[in-house]
């Protein structure tokens, strides 16, 4: 087994009184592809968003490459919290994320979308950034769309821009948040193929998805969540043959 890259330790998250995540423990090794499945509202996306603190967890900690990230509770820790927040961009720069609704920047062309992180986060000059961005966009098959604005692109192409934008920063792990859910059916396969390619290149990935075929083919492990908790974790074979009743019910409702 490869060394652990990322670990969630007792992570909990609430919005007001509504507890969305509790006691999440998960260890992810380098090169693993972990797929997170479960009914909608089970906290899958929130779990993903806790990893890079887009939705900061109130409880527990995230350990990334041996460094612990967590926020303090008491108001007395005001300064400590500011300090930790000021450090967050460093963590996020190592973690790529792709969203359900693409979230490409509409006021920038495809290549500018990819260049932004390279120039502002990685400190590359414009020429270097352009070169890397171009290569990154070619890899996802958008070599002929470099100067197109998002409004001129299809959903699948926008999602490719988003993937290129994340990959250009050379992240150590990629988070995919239901990235095919907002796509027209005929475009889904293309994006899934892109993710397969990444997985076979050895990228560490955490994938929240409703695409069961993809999950069972590509994942090294599958996490089944329900009601804000991890119900069971296992290899695709283990999950397919699970005896855990909720996971069974979920899988039979989906796979028939």
């Amino acid at each position, binding site marked *: 087994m490869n060394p652990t890259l990322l670990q969630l330790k007792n992570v909990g998250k609430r919005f007001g009184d509504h507890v969305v995540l509790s006691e999440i423990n998960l260890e992810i090794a380098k090169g693993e592809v972990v797929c997170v499945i479960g009914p909608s*509202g089970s906290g899958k996306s929130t779990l993903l968003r806790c990893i890079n603190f887009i939705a900061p967890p109130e409880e527990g900690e995230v350990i990334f490459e041996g460094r612990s990230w967590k926020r303090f509770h008491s108001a007395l820790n005001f300064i400590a919290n500011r300090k930790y927040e000021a450090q967050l961009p460093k963590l996020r720069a190592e973690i790529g994320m792709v969203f359900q609704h693409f979230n490409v920047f509409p006021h920038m062309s495809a290549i500018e979308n990819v260049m932004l992180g390279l120039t502002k986060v990685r400190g590359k000059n414009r020429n270097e950034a352009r070169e890397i961005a171009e290569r990154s966009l070619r890899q996802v098959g958008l070599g002929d769309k470099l100067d197109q604005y998002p409004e001129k692109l299809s959903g699948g192409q926008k999602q490719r821009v988003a993937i290129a934008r994340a990959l250009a920063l050379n992240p150590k792990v990629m988070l995919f948040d239901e990235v095919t859910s907002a796509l027209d059916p005929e475009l889904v396969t293309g994006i899934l193929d892109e993710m397969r390619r990444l997985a076979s290149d050895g990228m560490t990935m955490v994938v929240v998805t409703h695409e069961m075929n993809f999950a069972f083919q590509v994942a090294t492990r599958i996490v089944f969540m329900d009601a804000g908790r991890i119900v069971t974790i296992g290899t695709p074979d283990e999950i397919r043959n699970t005896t855990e009743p909720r996971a069974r019910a979920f899988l039979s409702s989906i796979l028939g």
Partner: protein
Amino acid sequence: MASEQPFFDFAPIWQAKSLLIEGFGIAMFSAIAGIFFAILLGLVVAMMRLSRYRVLRAIAFIYTQLFRGVPLYVLVLWIYFGLVFAVGIDIPRIPSGIIALALLNSGYLSETFRSGILAVDKGQREAGEALGLRPWQVNRFIVLPQAGRIVVPPTGNQFVDAIKDSAILSIIGVPELMKIAQEQANMYYRPFEFYTVAGLLYLVAVILVSKGISRLERRLARFSREKIEASSDADKTVSEVGG
């Protein structure tokens, strides 16, 4: 023999034309400078209102209420006459007028900017944060450019208002269009003619500015048509607006 007075006589207008043009220039200058500073102040106040710090939010809220709630007439007099007596700050006429216009309009614009910033899809901020951009970079490169497009039309309206409002600066003797028109109307005893011309000059300025704004709006609209439908997934939840 009393000489025959024509009912309408626009000849004095022609004689006073350089004064009127100068007054028009000062009116436009006051409005432009006023809006310029109002945009800067309004942006700062809008960011304060969206801050996570209660104190900043409270200060910004009071600021907005104050300058939206006080008539420009009072504000102008208060700055020009009031401040000298209260704290001995003697600000000349034109700067006083510009400050008054800037404060009043910044109150309105801060609200406009705030709603413009909130109108930018949350996913945009998240995508920026996920890249590892710092909060100010997310604002500078992602949120504000998009909010800017949204607020161009209402900011243009505010500019139009400022042009018309600049007439009020005549009460502290700023030699702008209205003040000149008043003086000349009294001198020639031709109020109808002078006020008509003054009114037309404001009207022309307002029409030209409106045209310019809608042209700008069309140019910016080209890349901002994309609307991302709101997320329907229950997993997606609000994250705080930084700043």
